[in-house]
């Protein structure tokens, strides 16, 4: 993977999605963290899905960035899900002393969308569950989202961030 370029941030319905396909140097990782926070705040996305299946190493710096993205999303009334951590990366993180407790993970983007209460159908990459009548994503950032998510899976209001430190 080449250490160049920015990571494109996509909005799919009610979810912000990134797939990290480049070797992340530190500055790029921090820029991604900021881009994601801004996009979530701007769109009121209920979820942030981060596909790391192409990433072959996660050191303590990148682990901290993933954790901070998750904590920031929680403060913005959103939920981050990290998708596709490779087995060798998981083994290494645990041995390094960074089990990333509190980080929500999923084996695939499909499962992540289901966890977030987002329905996917044939013909469109992701169609979201229609928001309740009282909820207007463009004008009402964050309110009324927990109820939606809770229908599919119990999501605590925030990750257990303290366990990382």
């Amino acid at each position: 993977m080449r250490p160049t370029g920015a990571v494109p941030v996509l909005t799919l319905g009610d979810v912000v999605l990134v797939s990290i396909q480049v070797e992340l140097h530190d500055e790029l990782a921090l820029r991604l963290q900021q881009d994601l926070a801004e996009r979530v705040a701007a769109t009121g996305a209920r979820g942030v899905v981060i596909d790391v299946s192409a990433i072959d190493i996660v050191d303590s710096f990148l682990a901290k960035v993933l954790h901070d993205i998750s904590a920031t999303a929680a403060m913005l009334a959103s939920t981050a899900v990290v998708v596709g951590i490779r087995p060798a990366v998981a083994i290494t993180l645990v041995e390094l002393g960074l089990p990333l407790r509190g980080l929500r993970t999923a084996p695939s983007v499909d499962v992540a969308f289901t966890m977030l209460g987002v329905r996917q159908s044939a013909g469109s990459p992701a169609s979201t569950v229609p928001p309740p009548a009282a909820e207007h994503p463009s004008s009402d950032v964050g309110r009324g989202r927990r109820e939606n998510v809770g229908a599919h899976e119990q999501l605590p209001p925030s990750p257990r961030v303290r366990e990382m430190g």
Partner: protein
Amino acid sequence: MEARVVTIATELDIVRVRQTVRDIAVRGRFSLVEQTKLVTAASELARNALVHGGGGEVSVSAEPAGPGVRVRLVFVDHGPGIADLDQALTDGFTTGSGLGLGLGGARRLVDEFHIESTPGRGTTVTISSTSGGVVR
């Protein structure tokens, strides 16, 4: 025996160190988990050399060891050095903005770990791992 030297002067050099170590570990027939551990340790130590040592270099070499290959990395910086090595190796101890797992974490990921530091002169960290699941 081959040896390569990578200068550590910017964040991008941390990526170069990772790629160099990955390359040598692959050629040394390291398993995927062995590679990942060694490359992760290298990333931690390269960042330490950059952030705390003001930059430096790493020498990467490989040599036959039994049925496998031993890869040795020597990180040298000429920064302020570390006054209390025991403290620096303790999880959670940090003078920077990270998680304080760099040195102690890197030590857990490799077969051998050696650190020498002289306050005012710099720090040298030597690590090695051998392919083929050598018992530590």
